[in-house]
């Protein structure tokens, strides 16, 4: 009895070890040699722990920005980065998130096996983000861990099959084949972008004949991209808030140096988070691939958005710029209206805007690319603002999920929460 209690509450209550155990089982199922089993299990556990370490570094820097932004503008500034908000949620419900992710994958397999929605969602990062969102939503409805995990897993399984199906018609136009699906939870935006493109443009007048200036490609680099876009807004917030407001939180650092150091620290924290996610997924995703190939032969893998980038590299840059301009305009409108302000951090706008651009280009040429990405830019600015109150309610702050498909789930939960009187 004593040993059972130790295993269930102490050992498996530690989410990192629970995740390690899952990796261990996955590696054993794949019949890996002993050295690979050991190194894979250790890396998964350490990856999960690194994830938490990056979270506290990024969060500290984000808090400073938030406080300056609210002093300067009298409004709340939110930076929508899925990695950051997931890392925060992970400190609150690590076990619920880990179990929703793994059991959700099992639901994905079952749905793909027995329905016509034969998609296997293999973007581990996005499964993790969705598991975090679902944990936040279900726990804020006041459900117990067990019920939250069960409902969360079913919803994640459904999302894994239904969302890729939503964008598949456009995806075929992008890749020219029906072999892969898009596994990136902005499929509403991508499908919309593809649809808009087909209405307004001409796919023969594509983006790939346009020459763009070379320096634009530096946004491809994660570190540069985050540092530049966060840095600009950190300085704006610091200067509007004024010298004394900055010095109050800068611990003696010069007030004009503080925003720079905080920005770079934030980027560093975010990079640590991704490194953790990479270590952790490096063992989990191959197990998912192996299991799905056995259990659901012939299913389409739904893959991360950069798999479509080689089909139209110029559209990725045009799409990013167009979406980012939309994000800037939305920010100005939000400031004017005095609501929560969504700060256009380059990362979501890059990945999501670029993909929307590729989809729009495939159906409507450069016009489709620009307009599709612009509409997407509006959606990923308004969406995080809509679901931010839910994040805040449960004690998370400063960040939110930009993904359009998450916004829809959040809105549905909001209705349910209001209906049953939980919110």
């Amino acid at each position: 009895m004593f040993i059972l209690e130790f295993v269930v509450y102490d050992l498996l209550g530690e989410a990192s070890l629970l995740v390690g155990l899952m990796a261990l089982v996955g590696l054993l199922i794949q019949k890996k040699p002993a050295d690979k089993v050991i190194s894979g299990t250790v890396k998964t556990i350490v990856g999960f722990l690194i994830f938490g370490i990056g979270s506290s570094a990024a969060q500290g820097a984000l808090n400073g920005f938030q406080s300056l932004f609210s002093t300067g503008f009298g409004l709340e500034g939110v930076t929508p980065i899925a990695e950051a908000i997931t890392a925060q949620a992970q400190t609150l419900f690590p076990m619920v998130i880990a179990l929703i992710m793994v059991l959700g994958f099992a639901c994905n397999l079952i749905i793909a096996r027995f329905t016509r929605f034969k998609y296997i969602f293999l973007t581990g990062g996005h499964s993790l983000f969705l598991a975090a969102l679902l944990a936040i939503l279900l726990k804020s409805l006041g459900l117990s861990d067990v019920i939250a995990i069960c409902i969360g897993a079913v919803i994640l399984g459904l999302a894994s099959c239904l969302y890729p199906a939503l964008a598949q018609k456009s995806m075929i136009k992008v890749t020219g084949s029906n072999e892969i699906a898009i596994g990136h939870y902005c499929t509403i935006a991508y499908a919309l972008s593809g649809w808009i493109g087909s209405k307004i443009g001409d796919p023969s007048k594509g983006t790939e004949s346009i020459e763009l200036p070379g320096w634009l490609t530096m946004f491809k680099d994660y570190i540069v991209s985050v540092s530049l876009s966060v840095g600009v807004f950190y300085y704006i917030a610091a200067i509007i808030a004024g010298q004394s407001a900055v010095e109050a939180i800068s611990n003696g650092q010069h007030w004009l140096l503080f925003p720079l150091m905080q920005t770079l620290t934030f980027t560093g924290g975010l990079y640590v988070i991704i490194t953790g996610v990479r270590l952790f997924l490096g063992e989990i995703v191959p197990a998912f691939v192996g299991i799905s190939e056995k259990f659901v032969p012939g299913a389409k893998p739904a893959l991360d958005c950069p798999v479509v980038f080689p089909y139209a590299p110029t559209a990725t840059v045009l799409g990013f710029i167009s979406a980012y301009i939309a994000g800037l305009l939305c920010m100005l409108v939000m400031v004017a209206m005095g609501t929560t302000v969504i700060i256009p951090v380059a990362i979501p706008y890059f990945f999501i805007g670029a993909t929307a651009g590729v989809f729009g280009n495939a159906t409507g040429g450069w016009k489709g690319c620009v307009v599709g990405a612009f509409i997407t830019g509006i959606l990923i600015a308004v969406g995080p603002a809509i679901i931010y109150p839910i994040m805040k309610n449960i004690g998370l702050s400063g960040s939110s999920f930009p993904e359009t498909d998450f916004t829809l789930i959040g809105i549905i939960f909001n209705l349910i929460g209001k209906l049953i009187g939980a919110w």
Partner: protein
Amino acid sequence: MMRIRKEEKKKMTRKTALIMCRTGMGSSLMLKIKVDKLIQKNNFPLDVTHDAFSGFAGQKADIIITMEDLLDEFKSYSAYVIGVKDIMDVDFIEGELKKYFAENS
């Protein structure tokens, strides 16, 4: 027979491959799964790691594998660079790796 094979193995020096994408957790991971399968199938003497290309500086590799739209980022390096357009096109990756090992062993 066994002996000859052993000697052959000794002669082939192991090479390293880096698989890169923007964050190192999406497309590079899928590429790594495909490359690992090819290594098993063909017995390539190749060790593979995957990373975000922000983390590229300072890492040495004989082969770099990435999605085609990132090819320009690796122009100035001496490594053998493979740019993949269609992530499901395993034959292309296999052909490129075979070409590399034919030239460099």
